[in-house]
């Protein structure tokens, strides 16, 4: 009972803190003409999925979207407000949530290894995000799917770089702070004697 509640507290805190981390990463951004920026926030999304897993990771991303919706400038370049969800990036934002689920599922499907991390962030953090982002972008801007897809090729180099970084970071984090992936719950809450 007490154990259970302590775990909830830790979950809430991690979700909130990762949402904050994603918001902070929004200050690293390259605005592109066309309205969809290159942003380090996708790195934050990849890390949220990979570190927090398929349940808490997407919740952290969703929380960022809620903060944006209520008007806090948490998105790339200090943007926020409901206008964002009527704009050309709305699909990418949804894709972040779905992507975090997929990343979490893949990365946490077994022991955390570099190839699981790489597979997860490339598939969930790039493929899934684009799958949501490109159609919505095309719809909002009234363009065809093909030119929309071609225009988002501009993100690919950056996103591959971020995927590589996320993989390296996950592996490094496993060494630098093993409790990150829930190892701590075993250590911090040892079997109660008797």
């Amino acid at each position, binding site marked *: 009972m007490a154990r259970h509640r302590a775990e909830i507290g830790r979950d809430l805190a991690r*979700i*909130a803190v990762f949402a904050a981390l994603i918001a902070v990463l929004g200050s690293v951004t390259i605005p592109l003409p066309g309205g969809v920026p290159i942003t380090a926030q996708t790195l934050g999304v990849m890390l949220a999925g990979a570190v927090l897993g398929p349940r808490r990771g997407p919740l952290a991303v969703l929380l960022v979207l809620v903060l944006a919706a209520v008007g806090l400038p948490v998105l790339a370049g200090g943007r926020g407000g409901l206008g964002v969800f009527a704009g050309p990036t709305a699909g990418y934002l949804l894709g972040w949530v779905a992507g975090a689920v997929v990343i979490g599922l893949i990365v946490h499907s077994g022991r955390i290894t570099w190839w699981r991390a790489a597979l997860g962030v490339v598939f969930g953090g790039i493929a899934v995000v684009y799958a949501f982002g490109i159609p919505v972008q095309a719809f909002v*801007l009234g*363009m065809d799917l093909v030119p929309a897809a071609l225009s988002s090729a501009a993100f690919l180099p950056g996103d591959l770089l971020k995927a590589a970084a996320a993989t390296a970071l996950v592996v490094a984090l496993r060494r630098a702070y093993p409790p990150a992936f829930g190892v701590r719950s075993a250590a911090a809450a040892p079997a109660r004697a008797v």
Partner: protein
Amino acid sequence: MIQLYRPGTSILHRLPAGAKLVGLALVAIAVSAFAHDVWASTGVLIGVCALYALARMPWRVLGSEVWRLRWLILVLGGFLCVFVSPVAAWVSSTRVVALILLAGLLSLTTRMGDLLATLRRGLRPFRRAGVDVDAVAMTISLAVTMIPVIAGFANDLRDAQRARNVRVGIRGVVPLLVRTLRHADDVGDALAARGLV
């Protein structure tokens, strides 16, 4: 943290947040579905500008909102102008800009707290599905509290790299992550200690 809300007493300011949200959603659907000719889309844009006037927003505010969309307008308009037709360019751009401006107006006339309260009310039906609405509200406030804290961590680490005269590049994110996660665990303990979970 800077908020978008601009205090005022206009009818749009006084309208309940929930009503505004529903209205925005309905207009968005209608505009996406029907505003496909020059007259309709132009009318929608004029209507939105009229709403800014109704909210007694200074023109400066509307101007700066449009200015933020300048690249979108230029690129989208230019692209459609060249590859489709000037008419299509006008219709698409005005429709997108009108919708973004309308949604922005909601943020300009509604307090963050009111939006949060509406969100909480909207979540209530999900309580039966096991959603802990208080926990959601708590987590939202917690995230707002933590943004400057995490930003401070990032700042410290940037300073440390400069002070040590090293560039560790992306590896510099590792200490940021470690510190962030440790902090999360401390906050989790504080939540428990203050009897909040």
